[in-house]
């Protein structure tokens, strides 16, 4: 074992640190003790690097960001030193600055990009005003500043004048986030701290922004601290990684070093639990236990309660940084043995066979009647602008036909605004289609509700059979009622024959089944006493208590921590096995969709602007995507073993067209790198290739189509890639 380091900062050798963080702690005084949300942190940040900070929610990531700018909100107390070195060799301790100095320091030396771009702009003011005010507040020259703003915006692939003249609500989430990045760089700061800047965005947009950040960094020569919970995202972006656990950095090193030879058990567990698009599903495992409470961090190594390698030494002494090599420090006594103790999941295996589904057979086949049938379903929302204006129709769902069979798991993926949630809600009868029909076992849902024609299955029974699990566990349970009370209501309503005792037994039994033990204790809790994962389990139970045939899981795991997602999906599949339920799983994340469908032998449907553009089994979609849009989604899914870093974005435009005015012909043609003139005129239809489950709506799938003879589409933004295959 190498000598233990005393000067911890040496663990990361830096020549020209822009930041030297020494013994930084943030503490909150609470009734029940001191809450240390940042625990004695030491870190050097090199000038001009991209440092990735990764950690689960509640690990202290944002507090670290705040402390770099001395922006910890009261009553939090910032202790230690945050030394900032200017380019001309001066050092200042950020924690000692006066308010006036701080005001100058922020924006001019270091600026911050927050998570919710939505909330960072004043909705009543134009974007231009935000830029001008920022310049004004720092006594900068407005004209020069605005020129710089225009340049920044166009570097971020935005139309400067159009953006500047817009109100925030007129921009999409991705555009707002990019505008915010431009705003943060307006006063030419040396450092930009980005706190989960892409968390609220779609994969394609995330990837595009990550690429833009690299470009921008090269051009404007800034240091970037990128904070996220998403490890694969950093794999492509960061020069160095710092892994946070329990309010301190447990491992710091070069990105490649950490990804290839992670030396801390937590880092390895985190890597193993990250859903990945290519790794075998059996190798993904969740991390046992939960993150510690900031008031009561375990003694010794804070990870020991969850660590499979923990010994008495870990309980007794807090490991300092061990140096695995010059650029890699790790806080673990046993880092040398970690390779054997916690093997890394097998990474991408190109020749992998299709796995036999671990759950239930593929619910395909023509002899079975589907549970739910969507036939040419359309949902158009009309938004009238004024009394005499022509109403704008948003075609959220535009002519979709889909069969969902018993016990089948169908994952719908697509960017936000593509209509996947509307489609899901239409499928379970929460949204009335404006065209086409939705039938449950052959009975039209809305006819049953309105009492039209012969109603074979009463609406009440249909209502019971189609249930929902929502995205945000925080808002999915009534905060004013205990778990028991929440779960009692559906039982009372549908199971009159059960007496009070039976209801209680059933609720407790379900709680036990989903692993919430002791159930008596959990039953009496209010939602605020549950973690996000536990809340989501309660909503799952609530849906299952109705004995449904189809559950719509609307981004049901997106709000959970990465390490919990695999666990939750496994639970959903286990319960599906017991309760015979089909799932319609909506996700914007390919790796999650792939995980749940592959394990259950389900299908993945890809949606774009209200249409399904490709649908098929996991193998067909992931390994053999045919539609250019599916290809770009597969490309955008972060991959830990990303090698081709400088691959171009396989899109001609990164922003989605306005859904109120979708492009003619194939809707994807404005962004499609393969688009030809025909695509702008003609609309492809979803077709299978003969008895197969794989259906795609693209002319490229049709041999001898006029597409192949039509000229390439030349738009305002020419494509970097030219289609070569023929």
């Amino acid at each position, binding site marked *: 074992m190498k000598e233990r380091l005393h000067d911890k900062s040496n663990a990361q050798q830096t020549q020209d640190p822009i930041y030297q963080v020494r013994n930084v702690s943030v503490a909150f005084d609470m009734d*029940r003790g001191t809450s240390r949300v940042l625990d004695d942190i030491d870190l050097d940040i090199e000038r001009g690097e991209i440092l990735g900070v990764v950690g689960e929610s509640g690990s202290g990531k944002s507090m670290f960001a705040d402390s770099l700018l001395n922006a910890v909100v009261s009553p939090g107390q910032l202790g230690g030193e945050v030394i900032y070195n200017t380019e001309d060799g001066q050092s200042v301790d950020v924690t000692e600055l006066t308010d006036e100095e701080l005001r100058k320091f922020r924006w001019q030396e270091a600026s911050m990009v927050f998570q919710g771009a939505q909330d960072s702009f004043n909705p009543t003011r134009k974007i231009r005003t935000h830029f001008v005010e920022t310049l004004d507040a720092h006594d900068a020259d407005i004209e020069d500043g605005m020129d710089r703003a225009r340049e920044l915006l166009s570097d971020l692939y935005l139309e400067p004048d159009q953006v500047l003249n817009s109100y925030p609500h007129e921009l999409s989430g991705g555009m707002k986030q990019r505008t915010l990045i431009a705003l943060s760089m307006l006063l030419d700061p040396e450092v930009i701290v980005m706190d989960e800047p892409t968390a609220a965005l779609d994969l394609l947009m995330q990837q595009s922004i990550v690429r833009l950040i690299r470009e921008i960094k090269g051009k404007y020569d800034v240091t970037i601290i990128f904070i996220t919970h998403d490890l694969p995202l950093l794999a492509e972006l960061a020069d160095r990684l710092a892994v946070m656990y329990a309010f301190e950095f447990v491992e710091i090193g070069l990105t490649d070093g950490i990804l290839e030879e992670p030396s801390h058990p937590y880092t390895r567990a985190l890597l193993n639990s990250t859903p990945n698009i290519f790794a075998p599903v059996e190798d993904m495992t969740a991390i046992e236990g939960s993150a510690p*409470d900031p*008031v*009561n961090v375990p003694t010794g190594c804070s990870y020991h309660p969850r660590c499979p390698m923990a010994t008495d030494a870990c309980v007794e002494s807090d490991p300092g940084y061990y140096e695995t090599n010059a650029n890699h420090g790790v806080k673990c006594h046993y880092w040398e043995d970690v390779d054997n103790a916690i093997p890394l999941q097998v990474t991408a295996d190109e020749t992998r066979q299709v796995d036999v589904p671990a759950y239930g057979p593929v619910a395909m086949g023509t002899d079975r009647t589907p549970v739910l049938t969507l036939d040419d379903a359309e949902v158009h929302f009309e938004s009238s602008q004024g009394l005499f204006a022509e109403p704008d129709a948003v075609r959220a769902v535009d002519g979709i036909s889909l069969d969902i069979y018993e016990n089948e798991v169908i994952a719908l993926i697509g960017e936000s605004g593509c209509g996947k949630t509307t489609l899901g809600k239409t499928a*379970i009868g*929460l949204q009335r289609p404006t065209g086409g029909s939705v039938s449950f076992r052959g009975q039209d849902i809305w006819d049953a509700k309105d009492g039209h024609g012969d109603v074979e299955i009463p609406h*009440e029974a249909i*209502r*019971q059979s*189609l*249930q*929902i699990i*929502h*995205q*945000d566990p925080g*808002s*999915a*349970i*009534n*905060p*004013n*009622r205990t778990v028991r009370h929440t779960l009692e*209501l*559906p039982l009372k*309503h*549908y199971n009159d024959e*059960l*007496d*009070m*005792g*039976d209801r*209680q*037994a*059933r609720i407790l*039994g*379900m709680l*036990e*089944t989903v692993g919430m033990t002791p159930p008596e*204790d959990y039953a*009496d*809790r*209010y*939602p*605020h*006493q*549950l*973690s996000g994962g536990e809340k989501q389990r309660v*909503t799952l139970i*609530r*849906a*299952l208590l*109705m*004995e449904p045939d189809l559950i719509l899981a609307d981004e049901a795991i997106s709000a959970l921590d990465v390490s919990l997602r695999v666990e939750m999906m496994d639970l959903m599949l286990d319960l599906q096995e*017991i*309760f*015979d339920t089909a799932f319609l799983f909506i996700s914007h994340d390919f790796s999650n969709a792939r995980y749940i469908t592959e394990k259950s032998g389900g299908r993945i449907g890809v949606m774009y602007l209200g249409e399904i553009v490709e649908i098929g089994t996991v193998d067909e979609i992931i390994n053999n995507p045919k539609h250019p849009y599916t290809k770009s989604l597969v490309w955008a899914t972060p991959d830990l073993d990303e090698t081709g870093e400088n691959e171009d974005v396989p899109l001609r435009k990164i922003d989605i067209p306005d859904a109120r005015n979708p492009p003619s012909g194939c809707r994807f043609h404005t962004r499609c790198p393969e688009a030809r003139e025909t695509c702008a005129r003609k609309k492809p239809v979803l077709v299978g290739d003969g008895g197969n489950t794989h259906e795609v709506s693209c002319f490229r799938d049709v041999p001898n189509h006029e597409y192949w003879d039509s000229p390439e589409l030349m738009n305002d933004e020419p494509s970097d890639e030219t289609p070569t295959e023929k």
Partner: protein
Amino acid sequence: MSHSDGEPTPFERVAERETSRTDYYREILDRNVVAPLRILISDTRGLFGIGSILFFVFLGTVGVWLTNQPESTQYILLPPFQDAAHPLGTGRYGNDVLLQLIHSTPFMLQMIAGGAVYNITMAVIVGTFAGYKGGRIDEFLMTIVDMIIAVPALPLVIVLAVIFEPTNPIVVGIVITLPSWAGLSRALRSEVLSVRTHSYIEASRTMGLPTASILRHEIIPNLMPYIMINFVNAARRVIFASVGLYFLGVLPTSGIMNWGVIMNTAYETGSLYTLDTAHWIILPMIMVVWLSYGLIMFGQAADKVYNPRLRARHATTMTQETARTEEAES
């Protein structure tokens, strides 16, 4: 749903032993009565508020039962704190002021309760239903509400009071605040609009629960802090309106014992202008202010009762383990 493998799934599970009904009700009592009361009295404002309300209820029940009706005596306009027989003095007709105040309390309390309950019930039913249902129903109900808001309240009440000459305290309470529920129901509707965006409302709808049940279990509990404050405000409005209207002599005063009536009599006999008789008019004022202040304090503290975090902490049936986790989560 068929499971032939013998082992019952959690779905088919029934109770192995009877849950004792006593335990169940004890728990309900603990959660719904004892814990809220504990929260109330753990707050100084709550203690004062609930103390004041209990004091007036005591005055209006036991107090009335213990004391005689105020009658004319030979002592005219006796100042307070002079005579042990008439501790708060007497009025111009020799009536004991203390007895008058005590015997006015039942009328006041009934009137307050009648007015406040009427207002809140109307506002909650119309406001939550309109807000939750939306669409045509919402437009229709809100049009009516807007029309009621547009009617000037005071002239309407004066006209109604003159026409009906109400004497029953509950009817008086309702008449004098007849149109004021409308504004409140509009405010409640806006609150519902924000609550109903929560996914659990949609989940309940997906489960096919009836509207009344969703309103009662999912929406109204979340509005309770707001409803409580407005209940207290409605109660205060009844007090002030009644005192004002009785003082002005708009409402029929004959045979009615009421703080407003006492002030009216005192005013009419000129006690506003001499210091000797000031107690006759000031003492009922103190009662009015005290009761309404107590109500305000009660309303502020009641806000906390509907905080699930506090309710969980004060319930004894919750295990220590749970309480600790709860602290950790917060």
